[in-house]
């Protein structure tokens, strides 16, 4: 037992667990034909959470190791500028339509999730954590800290939303007969942030660039719009 305690207390162990479990989850997803139901992030989360619960490990202990991966979200967000620049000419031509789509979509995301939540009588803390669910998690965490929800709950809900977006996207593109990769990417990035962006990159580089753009724009706009929308809807 002594060895286990010493070993588990080392941040390196949880870093390796995160990597190994994620690689396993990715392989599982590949073998199952890439279904978003077995999204590697959700599967990895479920396995790691179970493991932590079984070994009676606190999240803080796990995060001491996992923070090195978490940290890379920052530079990865900055890196989105590269695909954006690659397709800048096209974005410039479409800027107005992109802006209208983004504002409409971002407001729809906030209002619709709050309305359904209100129908179910969810407590205010949960509602406020749901509100930024379409925004990439670093931004969502920042927003929820400001408006008074539970930041780590919000981060998890954002990820579930992301997987749902990847799951629903093919259905919606078929329904509306969307053929343009730019529109596919933008829709995915707006509703499903980084998950949508990751799956858009699998469609094409153009889709990925527009998804990254939508993710950035939605994050920015939501940070400004959300406080206004929730006060209009009578919160706080």
């Amino acid at each position: 037992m002594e060895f286990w305690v010493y070993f588990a207390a080392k941040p390196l162990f949880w870093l390796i667990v995160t990597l190994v479990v994620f690689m396993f989850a990715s392989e599982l997803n590949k073998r199952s034909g890439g279904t978003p139901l077995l999204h590697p992030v959700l599967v990895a989360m479920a396995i790691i959470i179970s493991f932590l619960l079984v070994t009676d490990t606190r999240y803080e202990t796990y995060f001491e190791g996992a923070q090195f991966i978490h940290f890379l979200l920052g530079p990865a967000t900055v890196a989105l500028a590269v695909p954006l620049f690659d397709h800048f000419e096209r974005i410039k031509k479409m800027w107005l339509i992109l802006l209208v789509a983004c504002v409409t979509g971002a407001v729809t995301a906030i209002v619709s999730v709050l309305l359904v939540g209100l129908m179910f009588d969810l407590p205010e803390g949960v509602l406020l954590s749901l509100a930024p669910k379409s925004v990439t998690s670093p931004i969502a965490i920042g927003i929820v800290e400001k408006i008074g929800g539970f930041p780590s709950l919000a981060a998890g809900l954002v990820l579930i939303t992301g997987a749902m977006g990847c799951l629903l996207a093919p259905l919606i593109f078929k329904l509306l007969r969307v053929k343009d990769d730019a529109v596919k990417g933008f829709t995915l990035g707006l509703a499903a942030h980084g998950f949508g962006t990751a799956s858009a990159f699998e469609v094409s580089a153009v889709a990925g660039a527009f998804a990254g753009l939508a993710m950035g724009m939605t994050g920015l706009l939501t940070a400004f719009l959300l406080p206004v929308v929730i006060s209009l809807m009578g919160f706080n």
Partner: protein
Amino acid sequence: MLNGFLALLLCQLLGELLVLATGVPVPGPVLGMVLLLLVLIVIKKTPDSVRLVSEGLLRHLALLYVPAGVGLMVHLEMISQYWLAILVALLVSTFVTMLVTALVFRLLGKFSGPTKGERSGLVRPQGGER
């Protein structure tokens, strides 16, 4: 490669400093992304080192979400109480959001000339192939 990583980190740092200085409610990395985009526009190309690191990071974007996602375990009690409502709210809202966004493109695409339709067209007239 190292140059590229340094460039990303510097943009992020400048972004964080801008947030501190101006108090805008936006995370530093997002402003860092805007800064890097501005730099690329000015120098008119992406240096190889920046491209190498960026593409490497973006290829593994999904992995980077795992540590934050595991944080859900802190709220297991609350989730077990409200899981159905939360799932329905997320599902309905995500569906509606994507539908509305794609529809906006479809509606606006009709009014905005040939630039939008150039890539095999986002506007499909009614009664096309099913």
